């Protein structure tokens, strides 16, 4: 704030300016009084004041211009300033104009009232009276002089010189001179003995004298003393002139002087009447103009000072409105406005603090939310929250993993709306929706459905959410994909059963078989033909059944023991071709095989996998019965960012019944008359031990079979069955 320090205080400069204006105006006013010594400076004062007015006019003009520009730009506080200034100007101008008008009126009337016809007349009369009085005296003195000249006529120059003194004293003249026609002084007598040289007539007088023969005039002689000069001719041999100077009596001279002075003064005033009016009006106008201009200028400055805090306040308010809460308006004065500004600053600070707090709180909440979201996203369980209208509010990553749809993308939509887009999920979604609507408390339900990856089993747990007032505000559903878990449990149970069966049943089988054979061996010869035959038949039956039982128990033990004995890299297409080659010779069956180009490598036990393929192909052949087509394809697929090798196997047999589809991979489930029902269970077990999956592709129908089914009328029999196996592919780097 260095410039502020350099600037002189504005109040002091205004005060000085006003003092100067007042001084100059006072001086001009004094100069108008004629007697004043300042009268000589009048012109300069007039000029200085006029210049002062011009400077003030310039200042006011500059202020008005700047104000107009600010108003046009709609700057803060400019309109208030404009309004206050115009109000001030109107308030100042109106009375000033009225006072000015009446002052001018009074001035003009006052000056005019000094003069009137009567005084004019009286003045002229007075002057004429004095002139007449002096004229009379002059004529009288002329006659007296003529009488004196008469006395002097016919007397010699010497005699005249002697008599002149007497005559002068007799006549009461102050000086008497006798001179010749050529102007030579013959004799002279003066009341003052010191005056050696008499006052001689000038050329003009001589001229008049020669024309008229005598001369009389009132003239100031020496020291401005009024004298009556009379010159008359003296009749002698040589024409001579007698000049007599009569003093005007002091009283008369004074009176005449006074009259003349008054007359001249009056004449002068009368002549100057208009000039006087003009100069007074000029002075008055200047005074008014300067005062007004100075007042307006000061008004500008003071209003600007008053408005300054308001202006700052407006700026501050605008800043706060646009979100800048760090605005501190400077406190310019300790008045009401200053208090207002302080309150404003206080307010903005509080707003800023509150705003900061809100922001921090928001940040905190956001952090919390992000934290929770991270936790939710990393949960293995799917979590979907709903609002009061059962529209999805949030859903985590796991929900996507389980449903294979981006539930996140359906925020704001209800589950039923999803059903139309994802028909395969219709069943679980509808169930969940129904449960949501019905449940008033925490519910838990196991929901099974056929997803794109085959049968899936979900464990859903729902919690309706209530507000503090008790109204329902939404719900949360948490669900786990328990398919694998349940399957593992089942597998473990069956494995245990198989192991026990193998153990418990296999042991007595051999003694049974041996005993039956010994019975046959011992009793065959002792019995009669009929009996022996029956024995043999029975024994054979026992042995056969025991064999079959053994076989069954072997199967069980096969199922129970881990299949993945040794792991090597296998080219799956080669393996499939190898297995298929064994069945090619079968009459009536047509194999359609499609292999993707390149090596489709997996890691696994070739013996187990070969068994899988044998089982599946055998199943298919059994389903086909006499004549049919088996389609096999091996190709690479991508799923969940991982490479899988997919084997699909379709037959055109009677297909799988819908009610069996869920349980087809469980042990002891079979549609065939012969068979343990362990084939597909083992297949599934081996595939799962290899980290893969197998499911029934219910959607696939062979085209030609569809035609047959239509003609035969029994739809279900001729649908054909399809299996899809997916095994994790082995990258070349892993080889």
């Amino acid at each position: 704030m260095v410039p502020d320090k350099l600037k002189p205080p504005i109040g002091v400069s205004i005060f000085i300016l006003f003092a100067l204006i007042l001084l100059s105006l006072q001086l001009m006013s004094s100069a108008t009084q004629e007697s004043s010594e300042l009268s000589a400076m009048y012109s300069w004062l007039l000029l200085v004041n006029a210049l002062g007015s011009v400077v003030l006019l310039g200042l006011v003009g500059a202020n008005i211009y700047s104000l107009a520009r600010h108003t046009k730009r709609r700057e803060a506080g400019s309109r208030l300033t404009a309004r206050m200034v115009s109000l001030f100007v109107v308030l100042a101008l109106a009375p000033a104009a009225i006072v000015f008008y009446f002052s001018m009126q009074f001035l003009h009337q006052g000056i005019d009232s000094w003069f009137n016809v009567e005084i004019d007349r009286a003045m002229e009369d007075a002057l004429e009276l004095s002139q007449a009085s002096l004229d009379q005296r002059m004529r009288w003195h002329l006659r007296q002089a003529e009488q004196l000249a008469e006395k002097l006529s016919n007397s010699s120059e010497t005699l005249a010189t002697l008599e002149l003194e007497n005559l002068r004293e007799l006549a009461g003249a102050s000086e008497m001179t006798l001179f010749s026609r050529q102007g030579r002084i013959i004799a002279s007598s003066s009341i003052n003995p010191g005056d050696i040289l008499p006052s001689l007539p000038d050329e003009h007088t001589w001229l008049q004298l020669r024309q008229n023969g005598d001369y009389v005039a009132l003239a100031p002689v020496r020291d401005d003393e009024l004298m009556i000069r009379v010159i008359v001719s003296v009749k002698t041999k040589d024409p001579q002139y007698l000049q007599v100077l009569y003093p005007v009596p002091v009283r008369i001279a004074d009176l005449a002087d006074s009259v003349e002075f008054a007359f001249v003064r009056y004449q002068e005033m009368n002549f100057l009447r208009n000039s006087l009016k003009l100069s007074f009006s000029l002075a008055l106008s200047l005074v008014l103009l300067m005062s007004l201009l100075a007042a307006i200028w000061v008004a500008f400055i003071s209003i600007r000072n008053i408005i300054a805090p308001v202006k700052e306040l407006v700026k501050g308010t605008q800043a706060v409105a646009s979100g800048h809460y760090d605005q501190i308006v400077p406190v310019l004065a300790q008045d009401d406005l200053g208090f207002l500004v302080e309150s404003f600053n206080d307010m903005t600070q509080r707003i800023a603090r509150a705003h900061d707090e809100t922001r921090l709180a928001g940040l905190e909440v956001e952090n919390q939310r992000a934290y929770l979201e991270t936790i939710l996203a990393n949960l293995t369980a799917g979590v979907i929250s709903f609002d009061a209208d059962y529209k999805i509010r949030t859903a985590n990553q796991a929900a996507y993993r389980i449903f294979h749809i981006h539930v996140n993308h359906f925020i704001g939509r209800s589950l039923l709306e999803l059903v139309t887009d994802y028909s395969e999920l219709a069943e679980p979604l509808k169930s969940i929706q129904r449960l949501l609507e019905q449940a008033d408390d925490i519910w838990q339900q196991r929901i099974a459905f056929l997803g794109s990856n085959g049968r899936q089993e979900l464990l859903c747990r729902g919690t309706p959410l209530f507000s503090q007032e008790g109204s329902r505000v939404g719900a949360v559903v948490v669900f786990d994909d328990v398919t694998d878990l349940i399957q593992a449990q089942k597998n473990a149970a069956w494995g245990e059963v198989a192991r026990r069966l193998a153990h418990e049943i296999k042991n007595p089988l051999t003694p049974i078989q041996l005993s039956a054979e010994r019975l046959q061996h011992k009793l065959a010869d002792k019995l009669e033909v009929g009996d022996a035959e029956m024995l043999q038949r029975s024994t054979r039956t026992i042995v056969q059944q025991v064999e079959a039982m053994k076989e069954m128990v072997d199967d069980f033990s096969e199922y129970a023991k881990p299949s993945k004995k040794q792991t090597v890299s296998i080219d799956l297409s080669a393996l499939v071709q190898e297995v298929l080659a064994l069945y090619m010779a079968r009459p009536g069956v047509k194999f359609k095989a499609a292999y993707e180009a390149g090596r489709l490598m997996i890691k696994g036990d070739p013996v187990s996998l070969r068994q899988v393929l044998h089982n599946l192909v055998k199943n298919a052949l059994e389903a086909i019965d006499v004549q049919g087509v088996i389609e096999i394809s091996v190709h690479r697929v991508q799923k969940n960012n991982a490479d899988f090798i997919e084997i699909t196997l379709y037959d055109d047999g009677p297909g799988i019944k819908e009610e069996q589809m869920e349980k087809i991979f469980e042990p002891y489930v079979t549609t065939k008359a012969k068979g343990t029902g362990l084939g597909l269970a083992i297949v599934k077990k081996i595939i799962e031990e290899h980290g893969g999956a197998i499911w029934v592709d219910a959607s696939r129908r062979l085209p030609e079979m569809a035609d047959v089914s239509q003609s035969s009328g029994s739809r279900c029999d001729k649908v054909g069955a399809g299996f899809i196996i997916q095994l994790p592919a082995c990258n070349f780097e892993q080889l």
Partner: protein
Amino acid sequence: MPVLAAFLYCFCLWWSILASADEFGVVVKSAEMKLQGDSYVLAAEFDYQLSMRAKEALENGIPLYWVVQVKVLQHRDILWNKTLVEGTIRYKIQYHALLNMYRIKNEYTSEVTNFSTLAAALDSMSKVRNFSVIDKAALAPDQHYFAAVQVKLDRDSLPLPLRPTAYVSPQWFLSSAWYVWSLTN
């Protein structure tokens, strides 16, 4: 702007009409410096023509002051001319109503003269004789000198109310121009 131009035009017109209504003002008819003894004396002749307004003022008893100014200047090549000496003779002319006379007072000699006509009074002011201006010794022989003379109406001595008008009205522009002549030694 056109309004201002029109106003200026009218003003100039009025000015020229006022100025050319009748010829007035003082003209220096002749002026010379003569060596008289050891000093140069001025001999000059002027012609006074009063304007209507000035005559009117005079007849109403307002005294008019005239100043005869004479200067001797030294010519300088680079700088402005140097004023060596400046002499003034001041006259006061006033009408006396009581005596019906014009009185001239030479304030330089304090000589007072009365005239019954204005023409005679002005005539008496129109000649300047033997007004000693500068010593001969003050002038260097190798320098070039000028003399200048002017008769001025002293407007500052007019009565105050008349002054503002006198400053702007051509009726009161009565002063002569400077009459300049080369001074030969």
